[in-house]
């Protein structure tokens, strides 16, 4: 199985992602520069975190128009697996590969701390490493993570089981209005969503930063194990 990580000017989490993908798949991913116009031969494309193009205009807006995103869009339309984390999630919404948008955190503060996520998405490689309802810890580091979408879009996401992850506390309690739990103010506590064909997933927190006991835990490893398993690795 071949994986690739897209690097934009300002991307800064790509090495963490290399580590996680290598651990889970046993193979080092290919690094892809944003000016490339092909992702041929890959099974999974990952858009990592960072501040692509300095977050100019809106987070992810410039990156969404990079040459490589045309290739990623075509790849996704053919059923390719795409994962976007943090800035990668913002790029996926700006590219309209995922619905909704990420606004400034409701409390205006950049949040750099651990959070807990509840696994909710059904029938997807990105959630297959957990049981539905499982709770896991994930670091987060973002200023624009406040997920929003029109109410009918939110209803559809929930109805179709496309809310992949929701913010919760360590006991799995979800509370949209509690800023200690839903820290960035996301609509319906949504931390991650799936595309209609469930092959594209975006989330704000960083499971790739907890994939090794040496750095404090492996809570995020099931994300990558699940993807690899679904792809037959």
């Amino acid at each position, binding site marked *: 199985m071949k994986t690739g990580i897209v690097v934009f000017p300002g991307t800064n989490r790509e090495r963490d992602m290399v580590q996680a993908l290598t651990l889970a798949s046993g193979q080092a991913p290919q690094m892809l520069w944003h000016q490339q116009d092909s992702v041929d031969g890959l099974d999974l494309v990952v858009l990592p975190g960072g501040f692509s193009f300095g977050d100019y205009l809106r987070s992810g807006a410039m990156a969404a128009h990079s040459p490589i995103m045309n290739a990623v869009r075509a790849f996704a339309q053919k059923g390719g697996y795409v994962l976007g984390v943090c800035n990668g999630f913002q790029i996926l919404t700006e590219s309209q590969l995922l619905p909704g948008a990420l606004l400034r955190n409701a409390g*205006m503060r950049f949040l750099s701390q651990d959070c807990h996520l509840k696994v909710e998405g059904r029938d997807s490689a990105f959630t297959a490493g957990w049981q539905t309802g499982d709770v896991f810890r994930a670091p987060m580091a973002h200023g624009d993570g406040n997920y*929003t979408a029109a109410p009918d879009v939110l209803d559809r996401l929930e109805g179709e089981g496309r809310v992949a992850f929701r913010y919760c506390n360590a006991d799995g309690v979800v509370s949209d209005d509690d800023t200690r739990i839903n820290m960035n103010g996301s609509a319906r506590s949504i931390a991650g969503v799936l595309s209609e064909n469930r092959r594209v997933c975006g989330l704000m927190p960083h499971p790739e930063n907890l994939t090794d006991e040496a750095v404090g835990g492996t809570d995020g490893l099931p994300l990558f194990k699940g993807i690899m398993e679904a792809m037959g690795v």
Partner: protein
Amino acid sequence: MKVRVFVYLKEGVLDPQGKAVGHALQTLGFKGVEDVRISRVVELDVDAVDKAAAQKQGEDMARALLANEVIEDFRVEVCA
């Protein structure tokens, strides 16, 4: 020709920046301030044959990049 594209958050979309500025204004003694919304103005010099063409260019650019229509509305103004 000078084109101004005004990009602002749709009604109902939370504007934490506006809220913070509103609080700051009240602290400064501007008691009558109720709702504050922050928007963005993009000024462009475009090569266009007439005002209508410049207007269309502005709208096309807003749709393609300058505004995210999931959360934002826009208005285009062509300056004489």
